């Protein structure tokens, strides 16, 4: 069963001894079955807070406002037990570090059997044969034997494949991959990108890929949300984001990527300044202090989300449809 996901006016703040940190502010995103959604931004922009909110895994000091509608149900308002059931059954998360995603003292096979705990209709032998088929599917040779391995016996790339297999075993309607290739070498990264792209052909749910790597997002996603300082500053089709970026931050971020230049540059482009302190988010545009196109209203008035086309939006005073 897979349905659409829509977060509207979603805000998350963390209560800390030094005051509240407004990690996510008024975020609107939507995703439909069969889509691959990319969430891109630099460290501290709130992309991990967003996906942990979607997976209902926020720490106890987080306060959540707004709604996350999945399949017509508001996840933010469910009680803990219903949330947990949903995570096993409908929502799966592939974490950044394939090293710590598994229990080191249990074999891969045993852990993947446990991942299917919600499938009460299957016996252990059936679960194991599903695992073997899924491991084979994600490109692990000799799957039967690999099931008896402990996590440390597998390489980083293989562990990431197993983590993807584990997520898919639950038949999730929503698969979240948080920095799925960051810990891997470039040759393995290309293979995991290829694997995810192949898997989506036969998978009907939503895939959300979070990355700071623009190349990974461009290779994988259909639609992209660009985040900065806890806000979605621009969203649209992947081609519009990479070829017709309108928000000054998106443009600056794209311009910084050295992979875009083939001739040697004497100076690499950068974005001067630092992101704002999220305990006291600015009242105007969050990017105004670093923006070279900022004018008077940017400092005092929060910019509206401007609709540039049916699917392309940007949160900026300077853009016009």
């Amino acid at each position: 069963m897979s349905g659409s996901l829509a977060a509207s006016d979603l805000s998350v703040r963390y209560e800390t001894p030094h005051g509240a940190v407004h990690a996510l502010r008024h975020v609107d995103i939507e995703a439909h079955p069969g889509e691959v959604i990319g969430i891109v931004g630099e460290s501290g922009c709130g992309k991990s807070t967003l996906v942990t909110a979607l997976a209902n895994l926020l720490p106890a000091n987080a306060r959540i406002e707004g709604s996350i509608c999945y399949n017509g149900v508001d996840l933010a308002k469910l009680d803990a037990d219903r949330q947990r059931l949903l995570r096993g059954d409908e929502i799966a998360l592939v974490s950044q570090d394939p090293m710590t995603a598994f229990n080191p003292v249990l074999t891969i096979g045993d852990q993947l059997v446990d991942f299917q705990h919600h499938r009460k209709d299957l016996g252990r032998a059936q679960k194991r044969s599903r695992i073997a088929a899924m491991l084979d599917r994600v490109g692990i040779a000799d799957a039967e034997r690999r099931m008896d391995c402990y996590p440390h016996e597998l390489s980083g790339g293989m562990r990431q494949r197993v983590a993807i297999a584990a997520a898919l075993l639950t038949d999730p309607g929503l698969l979240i991959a948080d920095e799925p290739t960051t810990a891997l070498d470039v040759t393995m990264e290309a293979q995991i990108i290829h694997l995810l792209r192949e898997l989506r052909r036969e998978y009907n749910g939503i895939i959300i890929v979070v990355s700071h790597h623009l190349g990974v997002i461009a290779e994988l996603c259909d639609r992209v949300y660009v985040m900065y300082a806890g806000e979605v500053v621009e969203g649209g089709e992947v081609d519009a984001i990479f070829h017709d970026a309108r928000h000054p931050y998106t443009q600056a971020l794209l311009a910084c990527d050295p992979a875009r230049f083939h001739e040697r540059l004497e100076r690499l482009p950068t974005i001067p300044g630092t992101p704002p302190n999220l305990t006291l988010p600015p009242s105007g545009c969050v990017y105004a202090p670093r923006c070279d196109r900022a004018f008077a209203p940017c400092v005092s008035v929060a910019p509206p989300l401007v609709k540039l086309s049916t699917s392309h939006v940007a949160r900026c005073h300077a853009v016009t449809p």
Partner: protein
Amino acid sequence: MTPLLAVEDLSVTFARNGLLSRLINPFPLPSFNVIDGVTLSLMPGETLGLVGESGSGKTTLARTILGLVRAAAGRIVFEGREVRTPADFRAMRRRSAMMFQDPVASLSPRLRIGTLLTEPRIIQGVPMPDRRAAARALLALVGLPASFVDRFPHELSGGQARRVGVARALAMKPHLLLADEPTAGLDVSVQGDVLNLIGELQRELGFAAMIVTHNLAMIRHVSDRLAIMYLGRLVETGPTRDVFAAPMHPYTATLIQSEPVPDPRRRSRNPAVTGEIPSVFRRPSGCEFHTRCPIARDRCKTEAPACRPMGADRMVRCHFPLETGGQEREAFSRASANQRGN
């Protein structure tokens, strides 16, 4: 011009077994070459990029050059003199510096930035009349405010910690800077800052740099020459521009092709290479890349290729190097079937 640093036929061997198992097992397993026959040189003021996947031995090579790991065979010549004894290495380290991979972890958490910056001079016994002024001068060099002398490492951001790392490496005015993954874990907008800073200081102070990295997109802009490593051996060296324009070793070509392109209109079709870098403990016979090479032939499985000079300043270690317009290159592009659209 004589090279600042010349490494000749350098090998590093790690024993497979620890002390305990050697005591128990009277017939120890053979030891393994982590670095095998590496020859390279670095001219004064030049920037060399040392590139490879994790497990290729690039960090070990950098550490061996500074004497932090002992070489089993080969020669290291620094400023025209061979470096052999621990005293030689100590003297060499006075004129060279290393930036370690993790910027925060490489700064002692209980020392203030001012102390950390001047520590190299204390260790080397350089007279310093005013320690705080020296620290402030180093901070100014890397564009950090003087108030940072009293801060602790945990109070810095990743980019600031990296700048402190640069300042500390330059405290002894080195002739050689070895930077191990200087941009790992940094955002793209900050990565450029750190690299621009190293580049500016290099032009100003004239030191040579060796940058160890797996980030091809970055190294293409900051290095003059490249050395590509695979399983402890150099497989290709040459001027950066030439290597990117026409890689000769199939491994170099697959690395360049594997890099994701930030353009959805030019998506790759298939991964250029499958499988993973083998362990040095189970080094494949013949050419070590034959297990993953798209154009490997029978000869590659049995016979290890020798270093072949390819014109001025280029070397490749391959039986069938990809020459421009040659049949190997065509076979390679067919085999890897990874031509990007557009």
